[in-house]
C-alpha cells in the first residue's frame, strides 16, 4: 500500500492539495482512521501480505488492526509489514518526523503482544540503489540500519532475551534489484549470509527461524528509460529473475514497476502487464519445482564472497562512527550515495555504461505503444483533490472534540517522556484524529527533521584538485568552466542558481546530481533539500540573488507547483529570472509549462548533464544581455 504523499509524510490532505499531489504518488486516502478500513474493504486480508510505507507515519498504519477489529475480522490472520528506511539513506521515505526513535518505540509494543503477524519494521534499502548505491553499499547500509534499530531496542531494556529473539525474527527487508541480474542475485545470497552472521553472533539468536532473512522487493525503476520505453518490460523481467532464481534467497513478495514509469503515471493496464509477468514466472515456468540452483556453484559463491566482504567492511566503517543514525546525521552515508550516483551518471554520459536506446542502439522503428501527448499515462481527476479536502473537513466537524484533545495530550506526554507512543496512538485513532494532526503533535514535541543533503561535501573526480580517470568528460568540464568565466565577467559576479524541490515527494537524486554538476562547472548553487514550499523557494531566490531557478518534481504535480513558483517570483519582481523544470513530465504538460513561462523542460531522456549545464549558461546569458 503506497499512500499519497501527505499521509506518508504526516500531513493532512490540505497540504497535498496545495501541492497538487492528491492521488498522484499513491492512494488518495489514509488521512482518517476509517480511510484505512475503506481501503481494505473487499480484500481478503487474512490471505494477503500488506506492505505499507512510510516509516514514521506507519506507526499509525499498524492501526489497521484496530480498524479490522471493529469490522469483526480475525486479527490473527493479518500479516504484513511497514517499510522503515533509515531516514537519510532513502530519500523518498524521509519524513519530516524523526523516524528511528518513533520506529523503535513501536517494536517492543508489538513484540510483547503482537496483534497479528504484522511486522512493525521493515528495513528498506530499495531507495539506496535508486540513490546510487553499489550492491555492497546497499547490503551494508540496509544491514547496519537493522543493527542500529536492534541495538536501540536491546539497550532500551523493554524486552527480555526471549522476546528479543522474537523481535530479531520480525525484522524484514525491502530491497531493490537492478539490471545486472547475476550480481543482484548474488547480492540477495549475500544478504542471507550476512544476516545469519549478524543475528547469530551479534545478537546470539539460536533459533534458525528467527535468523531467516525475509524480504520483499520492487525491482529497479532507476534504469527505466524514456527512450524506447517498451524495452523496459524486458528489463523488469530480467530484474525479477535476480530475486526469484535462488530458492535459498528468494523474495517473499515481488512488485514490479510499469514499463512507462519514465513517461508518467502508469495506467491500470500498464500495471497489469507487470503483474502478468510475475504470474507467468510463477505458474507457467518450472522455476518453483526445483531446490536451490546455485548452491555450490563456484562462480556464484566467488561473487557472493566478494559482496559479503565489501559490505562487511563498510558496516564496520559505519559502526565505528557510532552506527547508522550517526552516519546519517553526519551526512556520511548520503554523501557516499551521491558520489556513487555521480559516477554512474558520468559512465552513462561517457558511454562506458551501455543503456540500450539511450546511449547505444538509439535508432529504430517508432513504437506503436507510444502515442503523442498524455495518452500513454494516467491522468488524475482534479476533483479527487477537492473531494479529499471536503471529506476531511466533514470528518473534523463530526468528531468528539474533547476526546481528540485528550488523546493528543496523551500522545504529547508520551513523546515528551520518551515512552512508547503506541498506546496513545491507538487512543488517537479511536478518537478519530487525522494523520496530519497525529504527526503534527509529534512534530511539536520532537521537532522537525531536515536530513543532510550529502551534496555540499560530495566529491566527484571533476571537482577534485587532481582529477582521476574521467576520460573525455574532463575536456568538456574544462570548456564549460571557460564559458562560466565569460558569463561571470558578463554578470559581474559568480553565476548563481537555485535548485529547488517543491512539494512533498522525496525523490532528490536528480536535483542532487544537477547541484553537484553545476558546482563542478563553477556555479554557486543554492540547494535546500526536499519538501520546500513554493513560498520558501521564492524567498530563497530573492534573498540569494540567483540568476536562474531550477525545479525538480517527480510527483506528477508539476503543473500546480510550477505555477505557484512562477506566480511568486513575479510578485517578488523576479520575472526576469529564468525558470527550468526537470522531472517525469508528459509532452502535453511540458508544452503547457512552457506556455506558462517555463524556459526549458528537462525529462529523463536529457541524461547528459554537461549539455544541461550548457543550456543553463546560455539561458542566463540570453536573459542578461536582452
Amino acid at each position, binding site marked *: 500500500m503506497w499512500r499519497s504523499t501527505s499521509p506518508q509524510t504526516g500531513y493532512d490532505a490540505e497540504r497535498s492539495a496545495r501541492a497538487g499531489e492528491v492521488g498522484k504518488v499513491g492512494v488518495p486516502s489514509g488521512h482518517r482512521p476509517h480511510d484505512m478500513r475503506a481501503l481494505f474493504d473487499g480484500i481478503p486480508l487474512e490471505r494477503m501480505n500488506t506492505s505499507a510505507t512510510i516509516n514514521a507515519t506507519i506507526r499509525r498504519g499498524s492501526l489497521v488492526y484496530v480498524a479490522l477489529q471493529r469490522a469483526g475480522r480475525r486479527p490473527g490472520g493479518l500479516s504484513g509489514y511497514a517499510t522503515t528506511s533509515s531516514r537519510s539513506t532513502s530519500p523518498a521515505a524521509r519524513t519530516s518526523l524523526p523516524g528511528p526513535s518513533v520506529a523503535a518505540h513501536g517494536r517492543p509494543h508489538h513484540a510483547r503482544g503482537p496483534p497479528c503477524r504484522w511486522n512493525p519494521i521493515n528495513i528498506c534499502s530499495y531507495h539506496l540503489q535508486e540513490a546510487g548505491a553499489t550492491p555492497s553499499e546497499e547490503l551494508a547500509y540496509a544491514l547496519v540500519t537493522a543493527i542500529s534499530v536492534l541495538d536501540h531496542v536491546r539497550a532500551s531494556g523493554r524486552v527480555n532475551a526471549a522476546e528479543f529473539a522474537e523481535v530479531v525474527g520480525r525484522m524484514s527487508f525491502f530491497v531493490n534489484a537492478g539490471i545486472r541480474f547475476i550480481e543482484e542475485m548474488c547480492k540477495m545470497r549475500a544478504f542471507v549470509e550476512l544476516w545469519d552472521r549478524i543475528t547469530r553472533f551479534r545478537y546470539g539468536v539460536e533459533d534458525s527461524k528467527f535468523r531467516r532473512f525475509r524480504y520483499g522487493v520492487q525491482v529497479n525503476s532507476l534504469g527505466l528509460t524514456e527512450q524506447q520505453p517498451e524495452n523496459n518490460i524486458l528489463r523488469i523481467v530480467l530484474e525479477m529473475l535476480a530475486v526469484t532464481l535462488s530458492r535459498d534467497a528468494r523474495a517473499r513478495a515481488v512488485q514490479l514497476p510499469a514499463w512507462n514509469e519514465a513517461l508518467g503515471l502508469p495506467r491500470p493496464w500498464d500495471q497489469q502487464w507487470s503483474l502478468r509477468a510475475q504470474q507467468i514466472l510463477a505458474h507457467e515456468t518450472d522455476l518453483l519445482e526445483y531446490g536451490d540452483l546455485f548452491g555450490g556453484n563456484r562462480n556464484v559463491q566467488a561473487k557472493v564472497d566478494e559482496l559479503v566482504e565489501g559490505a562487511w567492511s563498510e558496516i564496520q566503517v559505519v559502526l565505528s562512527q557510532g552506527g547508522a543514525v550517526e552516519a546519517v546525521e553526519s551526512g556520511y552515508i548520503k554523501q557516499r550515495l551521491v558520489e556513487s550516483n555521480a559516477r554512474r551518471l558520468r559512465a552513462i554520459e561517457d558511454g562506458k555504461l551501455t543503456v540500450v536506446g539511450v546511449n547505444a542502439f538509439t535508432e529504430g522503428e517508432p513504437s506503436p505503444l507510444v502515442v503523442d501527448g498524455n495518452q500513454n499515462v494516467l491522468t488524475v481527476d482534479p476533483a479527487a483533490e477537492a473531494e479529499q479536502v471536503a471529506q476531511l473537513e466533514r470528518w473534523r466537524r463530526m468528531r468528539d472534540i474533547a476526546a481528540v484533545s485528550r488523546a493528543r495530550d496523551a500522545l504529547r506526554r508520551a513523546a515528551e517522556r520518551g515512552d512508547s507512543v503506541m498506546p496513545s496512538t491507538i487512543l488517537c485513532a479511536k478518537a478519530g484524529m487525522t494523520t496530519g494532526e497525529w504527526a503534527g503533535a509529534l512534530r511539536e514535541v520532537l521537532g522537525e527533521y531536515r536530513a*543532510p543533503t550529502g551534496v555540499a561535501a560530495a566529491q566527484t573526480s571533476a571537482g577534485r584538485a587532481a582529477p582521476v580517470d574521467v576520460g573525455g568528460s574532463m575536456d568538456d568540464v574544462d570548456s564549460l568552466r571557460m564559458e562560466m568565466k565569460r558569463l561571470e565577467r558578463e554578470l559581474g*559576479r559568480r553565476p548563481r542558481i537555485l535548485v529547488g524541490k517543491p512539494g512533498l515527494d522525496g525523490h532528490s537524486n536528480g536535483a542532487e546530481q544537477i*547541484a553537484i554538476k553545476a558546482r563542478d*562547472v*563553477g556555479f554557486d*548553487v543554492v540547494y535546500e*533539500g526536499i519538501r520546500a514550499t513554493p513560498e520558501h523557494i521564492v524567498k530563497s531566490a530573492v*534573498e540569494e540573488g540567483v540568476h536562474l531557478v531550477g525545479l525538480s518534481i517527480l510527483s506528477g504535480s508539476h503543473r500546480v507547483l510550477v505555477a505557484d513558483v512562477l506566480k511568486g517570483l513575479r510578485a517578488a519582481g523576479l520575472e526576469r529570472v529564468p525558470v527550468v523544470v526537470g522531472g517525469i513530465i508528459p509532452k502535453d504538460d511540458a508544452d503547457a509549462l512552457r506556455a506558462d513561462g517555463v524556459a526549458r523542460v528537462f525529462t529523463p531522456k536529457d541524461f547528459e548533464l554537461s549539455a544541461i549545464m550548457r543550456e543553463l549558461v546560455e539561458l542566463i546569458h540570453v536573459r542578461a544581455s536582452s
Partner: protein
Amino acid sequence: MSVRAPDMKALADRVLAGERPAVAEALNRVEDTRAAERARAADLMAELRAKGAAKLAHTIGITGPPGVGKSTLAGALVRKLRADGRSVGMLAVDPSSVRSGGAVLGDRARVAFDPSDEHVFFRSLASKGQTGGLVDAALSAVGVLAAAYDIVLVETTGVGQTETDVRDVADTVVLVIQPGSGDTLQFIKAGIMEIPDLIVVNKADEERLAKQAQADVKQALAAEARAEARDVAPEVLSVSALHRRGIDELIALLDKRAAERDPEALSRARRDGSAHWIARSYRRRHGEAGLERIGGESALHARVAAALDGGTAPERVALDLDQPA
C-alpha cells in the same frame, strides 16, 4: 557618478527601512566586480554607513570546527531573537570547490527557521577558493545586513583564514565547540586559534560531560592567559542548541556585551577591522608589486587609516586604492 547617486540614495533608504527586495539588490551590487558597478556599490555603502551609523546592528560571528552544530545553534538563536521581536540578518559562508570556484550553498537547509517570516533574511556566500577565508564582498555584505536588521549573524566554518577574517567583520566572535573536542583546546593552547569573545560548548545534553568540557576549556584558557599575560578571559557557556537549552543565557550574554561596550571603543574596533580587511584584500589582489607601488606595508596602513578616519566608507577607500593615482 552624480547621475547615479540618487538611485543609490533611494536604495539605501529602502535597505534602512528593511525592505527585503532592496536588501537583496544591495547584496547583489556589493558582489559585483565590474568597475562601474563597484563605484555605485561604494556610493551605496557610503550612504548606508552614513545614515545607518547610529543603528548599525550588533554583528555576531559564529565560528568553530565542522560538525559542532553551528547551524543548529544559529537556528535556535534566530528563533529566540524573533520571539523577542528582533529582526535578524544572517550570512552563512560555505566552502567552495578549489577547482571550479563553484559552491553548494546548503546552509539554508540546516538553519531551521520559519520560511514565511519576513523579518529573517538569509544570504549565503561561498568562501574564497584557494585559501579559504571570506570573499572581499563579505565586509560590505555584513554592512548591508547591519543597516537593515537588528542583529546580524555571520556563520563560518572556523578553519584557517576564515577565522581571522570573521574577527574583522564581526563585533563579537563566538567560538562553538563540543564536549571532548580536544583539538580545539590544543589550538587555543598553541596560540593557533585566536581568542574568541565567547566560547559556547554545544551539545551539552549530558550535564556531567558539559561540566567537564567547560572545566577543560577554562583550564586551557587560564594556561593561555598566563603565557600571554592577558587579563580578560572569554566567558564560557554550555548550551544544547538541539534541545534549545542555554539559548536565553547566550543571548543575554551577547546583549550585555553589546550594551556595556563603549561606543567609542566599538567604532574604533570596527574601523580597525575595516582597515585590516582593506589592506589584506589589497595585498591579495595586487601582491608584492602592488605593495611596492603604494610605498610598502606601513604606507598602505597609514593611507587606509587616514581615509577611514576622514570618514570615507571602506568600499570607497578600497576602490581608490585600486585606481593608480
